């Protein structure tokens, strides 16, 4: 007798017609987007959320949610979401991107949106290289890491050390911002971070930024064990996990 | 300098005529000579700039050299000759060249800051390009906010313009 297919539990804000999704086996995007989906459900904002995705693997999320979505040009998700938010502040705008979209071609926009305290929520998935284009070096590539454009390992003498984005955003933002770094190896924590990041926008306090440590076994050319080793043991040595900046609330040390 | 052009442009516009005024702007204006192109007409005006002018107004020694290129056989050239320009450097082919020592005279009789209005008066006197009453109205429109703070400025400007007209009549 044939066993009926069991559907895995999915957030309500996910679009079932586009599942199973197109991300590679072992890709962290699925976990990150699931955490985001639950956060959207928990906050009840599916009807006023606008989701923006960048170029790269994040673009595969263009039909992922039952949520209005705009896929933008590379690095431009932040300004498109900024434009929507400025025109219709009642919408909750989420900009979802990878290392390049936020730290390279989109760095200019990330920095300025943060400094202007734009009331949007930016989620950046860090898998230490550029996935869709075949695994080139990213600003987040670790020293010694082999990529398509650093075949002998990243040399910090030549290319500097990896970018610590949340620390930078925390340094250039004022008190209303929420900044955190999560990981797909801790999805419950990630979901909480997303909730707080979205709440920061809902309550009109300011810019919210969450970096998500994630995996790309396809370009890392790692097996399951090696993938988790890199994600859980290596990456957090350099990219510290946790909330880096939490907005002040009333009564917090006001003299 | 731009103030003079703006006032003449405004005066012509108030008279109901076509007026097109454009300053040089950008790099030349900062650190270079400030130049304004003004056209007044009863018909639509064809292009914002032109090759030869009917009237050239040069408010400084450097301006004389900068504006020589716009002088043709029909041009009336009015300049401030407080800083003497050697006669051979003045445009040779103009219809008329009129030097008004405006900086010197306003220093003595009025106030150095209205020397440009004096030159404008001279131009109006010689060419009748706009009516004096319309020029006064335009001065009021452009500078009225300054007069509100210091009413003496109004008299100063009007006097400078009239003096310029007198000087022009004498020079011709």
């Amino acid at each position, binding site marked *: 007798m044939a066993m009926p297919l069991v559907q895995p539990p999915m957030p309500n*804000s996910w*679009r079932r017609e586009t599942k199973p999704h197109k991300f590679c086996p072992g890709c962290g995007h699925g976990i990150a987007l699931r955490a985001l989906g639950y956060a959207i459900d928990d906050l009840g904002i*599916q*009807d*006023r959320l*606008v989701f923006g995705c960048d*170029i790269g693997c994040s*673009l595969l999320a*263009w*039909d992922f*949610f*039952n*949520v*209005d*979505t*705009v*896929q*933008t*040009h590379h690095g*431009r998700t932040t*300004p*498109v*979401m*900024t*434009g*929507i*938010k*400025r*025109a*219709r502040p*009642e*919408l909750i705008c989420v900009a979802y991107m990878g290392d390049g979209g936020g730290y390279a071609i989109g760095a*200019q*926009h990330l*920095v*300025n949106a943060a400094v202007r305290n734009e009331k949007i929520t930016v989620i950046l998935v860090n898998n230490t290289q550029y996935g869709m284009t075949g695994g080139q070096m990213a600003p987040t590539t670790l020293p010694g890491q082999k990529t398509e454009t650093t075949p002998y390992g990243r040399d910090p003498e030549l290319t500097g050390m990896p970018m610590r984005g949340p620390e930078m955003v925390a340094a250039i933002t004022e008190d209303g911002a929420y900044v955190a770094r999560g990981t797909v190896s801790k999805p419950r924590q990630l979901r909480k971070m997303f909730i707080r990041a979205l709440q920061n926008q809902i309550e009109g306090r300011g810019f919210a930024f969450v970096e998500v440590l994630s995996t790309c076994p396809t370009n890392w050319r790692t097996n399951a064990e090696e993938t988790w080793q890199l994600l859980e043991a290596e990456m957090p040595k350099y990219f510290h996990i946790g909330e880096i900046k939490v907005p002040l609330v009333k009564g917090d040390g006001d003299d | 300098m731009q103030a003079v052009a*703006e006032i003449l*442009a*405004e005066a012509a*516009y108030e008279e109901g005529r*076509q*007026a*097109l*005024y*454009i*300053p*040089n*702007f*950008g*790099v030349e204006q900062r650190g270079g000579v400030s130049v304004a192109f003004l056209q007044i007409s009863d018909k*639509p*005006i*064809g*292009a*914002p*700039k*032109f*090759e030869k002018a009917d009237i050239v107004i040069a408010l400084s020694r450097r301006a004389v050299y900068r504006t020589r290129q716009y002088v043709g056989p029909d041009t009336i050239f009015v300049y401030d000759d407080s800083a003497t320009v050697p006669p051979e450097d003045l445009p040779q082919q103009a219809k008329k060249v009129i030097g008004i020592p405006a900086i010197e005279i306003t220093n003595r009789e009025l106030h150095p800051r209205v020397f440009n209005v004096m030159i404008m008066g001279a131009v109006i006197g010689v060419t009748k390009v706009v009516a004096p009453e319309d020029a006064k109205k335009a001065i009021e429109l452009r500078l009225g906010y300054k007069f509100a703070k210091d009413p003496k400025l109004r008299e100063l400007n009007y006097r400078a313009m009239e003096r310029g007209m007198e000087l022009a009549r004498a020079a011709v």
Partner: protein
Amino acid sequence: MADEPLTGEKRVFMTGNEVVAWAALAAQADIMYGYPITPQNEVMHYWTRLAPKYNKGFLQTEDELSAGFTTIGGVMAGKKAFTATAGPGNILMQEPVAMAEAMRLPVVVVIMQRGGPSTGTVIYSQQEVMLTAFGGNGEGLRVVYSTATHQELFDYTIKAFNTAWRYRFPTFVLADGYQGKMREPLTIYNPVERGLELVPPEPYVGRPGTPGVDRPPGHFRNTYNVEEELNEVLRGHIADWERVAEEIAEHEALGTEDAKLVVVAHGVVARAAKEAVQELRAEGLPVGYFRPITLRPLPSAALLAVARQAEKLLVVESAYGQFGRLLREALYGLTVEMVPLYKPGVGVTPEEVVARCREIV
């Protein structure tokens, strides 16, 4: 507290940049996103002064890329959004405009051409014709109005919003630094009071109802997986474009029925061309004048009709053949001689056009 919008009509004497700000207000634009670059800065200066009085939005972005992409955001949110730029900013602007072109988004962009290439001058040229008409990595499915007077700058900025929202192609108002900075008279008015319809905006995202429950989600993309998919989408856009091209195209002509020589020009140079032709015709010379008002779509049918009867066309522009190239494509197959009067980066006077015509006729 918002003031009443523009009422009645008023004769004014102002610079072109100020005209653009008033026209956007008259068109009921909601928000401007922009980045400073000479010679269009004053558009923002005037808009930021008017905006709070009329409950309008403004954001100064970090560069022109962001100005274009935030404008896209504004439009997708269902607001009449616009931006303005020039020169090197126009080059950057083509990045976002390509996205708008792909997704048929009604962005309005005002361009004040300056000398190029590169930093060039901050002053004037007609050297951004190719960039504005065909910039971006697409087929140039965008509308470009080339204005010549301040009255047109006012009228066509209003029209640009209508064209953009009616036909859903990115729409440009192509002017230049002379127009932006010069002062001349015009009448500003409330278009609704004059009986002009203003096409209302509508949102792409954030429509009422829960996506996937009350309505389908709005999923917008500009990337496809296979060639055939892209081709199908483009054929649809191209069909729309071809269907409305004649409706949108506009031109102006004088004395072309009997002319042996026709002077062809656009934008501010067309003023000089027109004045020159009027002068020559008054002397009885068989010279005509043709001016496309839309560079995209070009009024090809009208242009062809004129070119067929003429022996020579004098093509006058403040560039090195960018306008000429557009014409040549439309005129392919004809043997009419095209004589250039190309002056890249510099203005053209009626006297110059007259002199050249006399040499030719």
